[in-house]
């Protein structure tokens, strides 16, 4: 484990590899032959309409959803569906949710130390030290003893990010991390995500924030109808959209 709460992922050369992923919920095919590679230390934004399969794809990466077919690799290691390897993988992949999902039965510090103690086997002292650094990083240190329910959405999401980065993950997944926030709180959380990207964290970001996708990502993947319709550098995707579905989508959101 690295001493810094946010380890630069470039040193560990971890990327995300997704190949020929299929996923159905009952008769409804949500993902169809999805392939996507994320180079270590870069940020990939996944954009697309609601219900296009963006979140499902993200949740397949850390095994919250099990793909029907296909291959997922994190840092060269292939994702296997058994519980033990899933837990091991998840301990190296941080995830931030749309609705924060902080644990209301723990205070802010307890939210951040839980995995450090119960997954990474740290002592209370070490875990609190590490958690303190992570909370400081997101500007929430003064709320360490607060109850999550008493924080604003933006503050809760900052704590959720601290909880995810504290163990020093090699990959961070963001599932519409700002979609549930009041507009005035979005900026702060996006700034934090941008800082993480700038530090070289490998990030996969499902987002509706087109400005963020354009400015921060190294790669943009447009998902349409459960498959990666377009992927490439943000300039290519946003400036010269040739795919008709992407053009229609951008016309509506920009």
């Amino acid at each position, binding site marked *: 484990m690295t001493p810094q709460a946010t380890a630069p992922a470039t040193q560990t050369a971890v990327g995300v590899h997704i190949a020929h992923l299929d996923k159905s919920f009952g008769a409804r095919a949500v993902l169809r032959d999805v392939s996507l590679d994320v180079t270590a230390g870069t940020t990939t934004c996944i954009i697309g309409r609601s219900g296009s399969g963006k979140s499902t794809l993200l949740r397949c990466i850390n095994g919250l959803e099990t793909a029907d077919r296909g291959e997922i690799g994190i840092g060269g290691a292939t994702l296997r569906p058994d519980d033990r390897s899933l837990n091991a993988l*998840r301990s190296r992949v941080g995830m931030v949710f749309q609705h924060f999902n902080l644990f209301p039965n723990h205070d802010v510090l307890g939210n951040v130390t839980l995995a450090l103690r119960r997954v990474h086997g740290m002592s209370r002292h070490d875990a609190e030290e590490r958690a303190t650094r992570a909370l400081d990083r997101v500007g929430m240190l003064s709320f360490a*003893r607060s109850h999550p329910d008493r924080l604003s959405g933006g503050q809760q999401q900052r704590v959720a990010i601290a909880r995810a980065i504290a163990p020093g993950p090699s990959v961070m997944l963001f599932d519409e991390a700002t979609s549930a926030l009041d507009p005035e709180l979005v900026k702060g959380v996006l700034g934090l995500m941008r800082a993480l990207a700038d530090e070289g964290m490998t990030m996969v970001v499902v987002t509706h924030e087109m400005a963020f996708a354009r400015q921060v990502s190294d790669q943009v993947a447009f998902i349409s109808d459960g498959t990666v319709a377009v992927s490439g550098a943000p300039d290519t995707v946003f400036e010269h959209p040739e795919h008709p579905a992407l053009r229609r989508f951008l016309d509506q959101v920009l």
Partner: protein
Amino acid sequence: MQVDNIIRVFFDPHIIASVLPQLLSHGLVNTLVLTVFAVVIGLLLGLVIAMMLLARTRWLRWPARVFVDVFRGLPGVLTIFIVGLGLPLAGLDVFGRNTYPYAVVAIGIIESAYIGEIFRSGIQSVAAGQMEAARSLGLSYWAAMRHVRIPQGIRRVLPALTGQIIITIKETALVYVLGLTATQQELFSLSQSGSSQYASMTPVVVAGVIYLALTIPLTHFVNWLDRRLQRGPAPTPASDAERPAPQAVIAEG
């Protein structure tokens, strides 16, 4: 005179004076002992039942379902009779000839069926995102249950659990069917013996007042707990710049 008659039958001061000490020293103590042990069994066994009810495999779910349906469906007095007298008769006399422990086990089993269902509903009501967040951090299923889902689920059903304790206090009266010895008798049995002895309802009325002294405060505690839990956690010292705490509500408590 009618009023004199009513007082003599229900509130005879001489009889009150002579039965009250024993009702408190034996009856109340036995009622509390039966309640505490039955609730402890009910909580432990109930948590196991709840885990089984929530299990992914039907081989755990189904037996738990049957257990809950049977012991919630039977009259308590029938279960107490069968377990309390039946087990020793059948040679399952793990506690010897002493009836008292069988009474505890019988009430404990009944309570575990109710408490198991209460636990299950509470744990199940915790949002799916909580488990997902815990699992996404690498916690195993059991670690996530233990540190995230179960504590939240139990917190939600604390009022229902306390309500169940009130019911248990009253249910312990049903062990009178087992014919316990004088020192083992709880409030109701003891007052009933006194009632025959003095040919007066007064001992039973005294027992009733003692029951109410236990259950009414607990009922109000449940209501208070319910209001408190609905209102959310107690405010933390750290103030929230973006969302001020609701001062009026805090002042009311």
